[in-house]
């Protein structure tokens, strides 16, 4: 293998290792924080307060414009709005059930991220051994695609549930007057599905590479 390729693979391996331990550290810090903060607030304020964040689906509607206002440039005023989007709402609460819901979301995202990084590390390790076209790598790619596909569905369901909770339980009209929370069921996260298609296409190419490798190995 050429030196440049070895350097690139070594860098990839290093970055993935960094991402792996970074993700584990972040998850650990979050879990410790979510336990420590309520204990600390209970000591100081007498009641446990949870600080967390939930993903929601929202829209920022167009502001109402007074039709009697004339704009001097001669054009009619045009309504502007921010289209529907996904975002994170941070909150503090004394209700531990919301904390559980937020923690479940963090564990879900962490599980997928850690699983994908783990599989990628194994794939890169095999490539560094100059054995990219092996059945194990193909199976790992399929597992990554499967995990991301399952995640896209679970994520859509989770955001739907959290948006419903935030809309009904939070005083969003009071605290977020310009935001409209929309509990909508979007079946797939289209970006993730596109990524799954790309991974499966690459996996198919690797499968052909495996066949060529086998033919080469059995050519005496």
């Amino acid at each position: 293998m050429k030196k440049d390729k070895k350097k690139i693979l070594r860098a990839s391996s290093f970055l993935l290792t960094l991402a792996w331990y970074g993700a584990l550290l972040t998850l650990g810090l979050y879990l410790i924080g979510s336990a420590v903060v309520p204990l600390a607030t209970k000591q100081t304020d007498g009641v446990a307060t949870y600080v967390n964040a939930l993903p929601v689906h929202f829209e920022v509607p167009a502001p109402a414009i007074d039709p009697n206002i004339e704009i001097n440039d001669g054009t009619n005023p045009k309504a502007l709005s921010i289209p529907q989007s996904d975002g994170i709402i941070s909150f503090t609460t004394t209700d531990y059930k919301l904390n559980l819901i937020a923690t479940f979301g963090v564990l879900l995202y962490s599980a997928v991220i850690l699983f994908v990084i783990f599989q990628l590390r194994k794939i890169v390790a095999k490539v560094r051994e100059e054995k990219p076209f092996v059945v194990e790598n193909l199976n790992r790619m399929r597992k990554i695609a499967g995990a991301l596909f399952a995640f896209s569905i679970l994520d859509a369901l989770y955001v739907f549930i959290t948006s419903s909770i935030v809309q009904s339980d939070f005083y969003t009209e009071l605290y977020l007057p310009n935001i409209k929370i929309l509990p909508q069921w979007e079946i797939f996260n289209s970006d993730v599905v596109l990524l799954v298609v790309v991974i499966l296409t690459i996996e198919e190419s690797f499968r052909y590479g495996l066949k060529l490798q086998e033919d080469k190995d059995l050519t005496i």
Partner: protein
Amino acid sequence: MAKRKMSLTELAEKVGLTLANLSILKTGKAKAIRFSTLEKICEVLDCQPGDILEYE
């Protein structure tokens, strides 16, 4: 090989192949053989390609 009283190991050494590869050839699992390999085997065994290849 039997006529030349040659073992698989000895043949592999003389032809310059590994024992594993020669075993693949012998058991019929090989998908292809290079002309250079066939030439070398025939040279060592003093035979024709037709003596060691068979179409079924």
